[in-house]
């Protein structure tokens, strides 16, 4: 493989993987605290449409990103309220969130344009790639790693921070305790409900941010079905990554990479039908999931937080 091809594939991989990685890390935190949120797709959708609408009308990318964070948080807090406070079925609640979010995003996309018109096809301000001097001149990886947009750079900070927080910090320990054994955590004086609220909402904010990357940087505009199932892939990536932020990078890179290779192969005019190439990420998820589950069973180690998806209610003490 020649060098420029490698650079271009790596660059596309990063760009395609950014939204996935934000959403995946968010969902890892949510699930680590014991809440399963299948609404990622819906939260990304609403994040994408709200970010683009704000960017279009105000011209401010900062405001756009903040709006996406807020929109994702709001939807996630609905899920948190239902699953933590009202102990509703998390699978159904998450699915509803996806349906609702997809519908709401599509509705807003047809209403938030100038004068209540459609957003589809409009061009707004977008996050441009910024070249980091010196670093981008590094051989091999430099040109692709250090010529990206700000949200991709944000990941370079978020990933190590997320990993450190999860394993080394005290709140991270509490989060894991709440997800693994809420009874014990509660007995130790950790507030189970509050923790679950915080990380569910944080997960939503990150999913919204992932959506913002799609409409502000990756697709540069709003289209119906902009996420194309990325929210669901993120849910699968959480399992792929075995609830670990660093391993999520590998997963997101793999999926982004398949996108990039596909893109390249289509550009090169391959005879393999596009539909079959498009199936690859989904087939890969299944295969990886089977291998991981099998491997985990062999190791007798469970990667999933033990209390994932199970509502917690303390015996009432009055």
């Amino acid at each position, binding site marked *: 493989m020649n060098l420029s091809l490698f650079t271009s594939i790596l660059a596309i991989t990063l760009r395609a993987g950014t939204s996935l990685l934000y959403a995946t890390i968010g969902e890892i935190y949510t699930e680590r605290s014991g809440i399963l949120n299948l609404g990622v797709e819906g939260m990304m959708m609403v994040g994408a449409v709200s970010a683009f609408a704000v960017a279009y009308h105000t011209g401010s990318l900062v405001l756009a990103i903040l709006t996406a964070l807020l929109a994702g948080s709001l939807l996630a807090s609905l899920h948190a309220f239902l699953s933590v406070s009202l102990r509703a*079925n998390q699978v159904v609640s998450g699915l509803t969130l996806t349906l*609702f979010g997809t519908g709401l995003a599509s*509705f807003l*996309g047809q*209403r938030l344009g100038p004068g*209540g018109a459609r957003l589809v096809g409009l061009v707004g301000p977008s996050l441009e790639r910024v070249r980091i001097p010196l670093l981008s001149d590094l051989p091999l990886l430099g040109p692709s790693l250090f010529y990206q947009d700000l949200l991709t750079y944000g990941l370079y900070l978020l990933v190590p921070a997320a990993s450190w927080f999860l394993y080394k910090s005290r709140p991270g320990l509490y989060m894991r305790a709440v997800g693994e054994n809420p009874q014990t955590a509660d007995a130790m004086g950790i507030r189970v409900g509050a923790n679950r609220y915080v990380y569910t909402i944080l997960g939503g904010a990150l999913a919204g941010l992932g959506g913002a990357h799609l409409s502000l940087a990756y697709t540069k505009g709003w289209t119906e079905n902009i996420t194309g199932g990325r929210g669901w892939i993120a849910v699968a990536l959480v399992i792929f990554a075995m609830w670990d932020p660093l391993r999520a990078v590998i997963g997101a890179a793999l999926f982004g990479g398949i996108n990039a290779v596909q893109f390249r192969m289509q550009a090169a005019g391959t005879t393999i039908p596009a539909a079959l190439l498009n199936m690859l990420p989904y087939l890969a998820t299944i295969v990886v999931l089977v291998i991981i589950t099998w491997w985990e069973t062999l190791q007798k180690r469970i990667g999933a937080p033990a209390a994932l998806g199970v509502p917690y209610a303390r015996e*009432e003490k009055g």
Partner: protein
Amino acid sequence: MKIVFEKRQEVSRTIRVLVPVFSLLFALVFGAILLLMSGVNPGTAYAAMAEGAFGDPQSLAETLVKAIPLMLTGLGVSIAFRMLFWNIGAEGQLAMGGLAATGVALYATDYLPGWSILPAAVLLGMLAGALWAAIPALLRAYLQVNETITTLMMNYVAILLVSHVYHGPWRDPDGYGFPGTARFPEVAWLPRIYGRAHAGVFFAIIAAAILWFVLQRTKWGFELRITGENPKAARYIGIDIPKLIVVAMMVSGGLCGLAGVCEVAGVMRRLQQGLTVGYGYTAIIVAWMSQLNPWGVLIIAFLLAGLLVGGDQIQMAMGLPAAMGLVLQGALLFPMLGGSLFAEYKLRVVRPGRQQAVFPEESLAKESES
């Protein structure tokens, strides 16, 4: 002061009735706010939706057209949900059913007598859905692979496969490049009752009746229920749970496949874009709202189909986004989800300092699964 949940002595029937009513009101108010924000009179919009969905025989027929796949997929997923198998793959199973039926309709006419084409399409479509569902079922039953993700991923694979087939190998050679297969021969048409409403509705009613009977009156139905409610007890009494999972999922997938058959043979009469429009996902809501009761599935499917048709209507008549129907579905389901807790629990305000008697609560974990 603190607010706690206290388990009721018995499930409150009043609340069981009040929750859906309140949820409907909530959804309507929420929708009204959205409509007002887009400068439309909610009353006019709702009237147009109701009129468009249930107003005359023609609109009722259209509602039925959308209700049939929802009924069949709703029945399908409700079987899987009974044993807590989260089949989110109804959409893909529907697609595979439609694909298999298309194959029969287009390519079997040379080998099979005319009268047998439709039954063959139905059987093969159901088989295709069942086999597609068997893959995640086998993975879950024998390797403990999470079925939520596998069923979901297989949706994308199935949808891409179907779209590849009508864009490529099976595309109508005389279709002027239009993506879609040739029109089916008449022997492969599912008869229509009124408007576009077709005989698929009888499949749905028969399936509901069989399912109701099987669940209430047979040993298999009992095994299915007990496995969902209490897997430990099921294992004690010697139920082969892996086998049960696979068989139940194949029945589930078969029904979803049948929905696909109905779509291609009853509505479109060819395979083209529009086979997979999300019925398989709405089916999950249908199954949940009907509390897995087969007759309930039929009713809820019809009502939700009304919301979808109503959404289409206000798009055509008033230029409002059809997504309104989806938004209303979500706004309807959220309060229902939250409200179901209040049938079994009541809120009580507890003042600090006063010691209350402590009642050991039953494991909520178990209940949340049902």
